[in-house]
């Protein structure tokens, strides 16, 4: 097995994992919201209502796909495709588990091993705004267009803060390579613990911005039901709507995975370095390559736990905070997060200069 073959083998694995993760979080969201509001939630289909997302999917497949007469036909069909591409492709940059060996050769559990993976990931995710804008424009519906305009300016407002956060992170990590960033956070490496403790302010700014980028409450103004029906996907039904839905939840997964990778040490288990994990597994009676396989699987579980923590907070916040007003949203992005990110960047640069520079 060559590294290239292994990467190609990972592609359907990761893709299917993301697509099956969506119904899981959907169920967590519906039962979780019911739990937070002291309701029962869907509990009829299958044991504890666990098959509800399947029933929804089947219903969605057999629904009629609406296409308004005045819509731009090609763009109307193209927009849902564009909504699903960026979140799935972005997952190819995420290091999912620690490297394992086959016959002494090391294999990284990451589809695209690039030195620019962090930058590329942000570039890919920022393409999501085009899907929203195209959908709103192509529908030729007032609600859709308003929703798309709101979504567009909301996403680009918070993009600037994320960009400045990226610069701060690069100054302190010294690299754009996500797998190197994860290695640095491992026990026994330069940082020795989670990046969150190195850049807490960036963590906060990024987290808030991620909510806005994913159009989640408290920033779900693009589809505020009481004002805009369903925002940019008002005219979509059937599987075209399904693609938007899937793309939105996959984008949440991607954002959670990015936050976990950059701030919570990725696949690292706290206080345990990858080598220690391997020797721990060897202590259980496995040797050589097989020990690295099991250690790799364990680190993947650690990564999944961190991702699900962020996913749960997405759900939790949705049912806890009310929606912002639009001027508050734009004000928060430009007048609070952007100056904060700038101050943090200046502080990071001065600190790093005093620590390592020649003066």
């Amino acid at each position, binding site marked *: 097995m060559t590294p290239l073959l292994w990467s190609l083998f990972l592609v359907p694995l990761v893709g299917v994992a993301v697509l099956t993760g969506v119904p899981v979080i959907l169920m967590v969201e519906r039962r979780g919201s019911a739990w937070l509001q002291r309701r029962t939630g869907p509990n009829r289909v299958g044991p504890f209502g666990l098959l509800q997302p399947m029933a929804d999917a089947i219903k969605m*497949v057999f629904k009629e796909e609406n296409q308004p007469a005045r819509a731009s036909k090609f763009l109307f069909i193209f927009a849902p495709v564009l909504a699903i*591409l960026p979140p799935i492709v972005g997952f*190819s940059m995420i290091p999912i588990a620690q490297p394992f060996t086959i016959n002494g050769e090391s294999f990284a559990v990451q589809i695209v091993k690039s030195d620019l993976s962090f930058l590329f990931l942000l570039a890919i995710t920022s393409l999501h705004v085009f899907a929203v804008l195209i959908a709103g424009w192509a529908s030729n519906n007032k609600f859709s267009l308003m929703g798309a305009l709101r979504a567009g300016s909301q996403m680009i407002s918070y993009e*600037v803060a994320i960009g400045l956060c990226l610069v701060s992170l690069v100054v302190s990590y010294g690299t754009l390579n996500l797998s190197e960033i994860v290695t640095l956070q491992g026990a026994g490496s330069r940082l020795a613990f989670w990046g969150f403790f190195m850049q807490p302010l960036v963590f906060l700014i990024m987290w808030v911005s991620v909510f806005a980028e994913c159009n989640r409450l408290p920033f779900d103004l693009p589809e505020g039901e009481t004002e805009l029906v369903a925002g940019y996907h008002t005219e979509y039904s059937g599987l075209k709507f399904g693609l938007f839905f899937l793309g939105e939840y996959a984008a949440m997964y991607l954002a959670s995975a990015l936050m976990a990778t950059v701030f919570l040490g990725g696949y690292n288990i706290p206080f345990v370095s990858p080598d220690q994990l391997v020797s721990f597994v060897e202590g259980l009676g496995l040797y050589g390559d097989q020990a690295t396989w099991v250690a790799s699987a364990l680190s993947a579980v650690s990564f999944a736990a961190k991702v699900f923590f962020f996913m749960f907070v997405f759900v939790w916040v949705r049912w806890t905070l009310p929606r912002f007003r*639009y001027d508050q949203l734009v004000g928060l992005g430009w007048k609070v997060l952007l100056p904060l990110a700038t101050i943090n960047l200046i502080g990071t640069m001065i600190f790093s200069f005093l620590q390592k*520079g020649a*003066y």
Partner: protein
Amino acid sequence: MTGAETLLPLLAMLGFASLVAGGALFVGRFLGPRNLEGVKIQPYECGVTVSGNARDKVSVKYYLIAILFLLFDLEVAFLLPLAIAWDEMIALGWITMGLTGFFLFYFVLSLWFEYRSGALEWEKS
């Protein structure tokens, strides 16, 4: 790590995502009923008779936000190469800090100017 080892998996991932999207469009086209006519294909406006076209003039505020985004994102793009080479740059000493400070001074100045001129206000009171 060769170029093909980076690019091929990326293209494969893109192919996988396109397959999902194309499959969904294909399946949705043929499995559901298709009876598009009459009032159903009019733009949805809460059941009221449709009036006018959606593609009308929109508020200038959205354009303003987009222009501000372009300006600031360009500055971020200029900062990024500096950040990547930061460790080598600060080895040069005060000259790096001076030039970076000069650039960031203008960044902060422009932000302050826009704040004071009210460009960042959504609703002018």
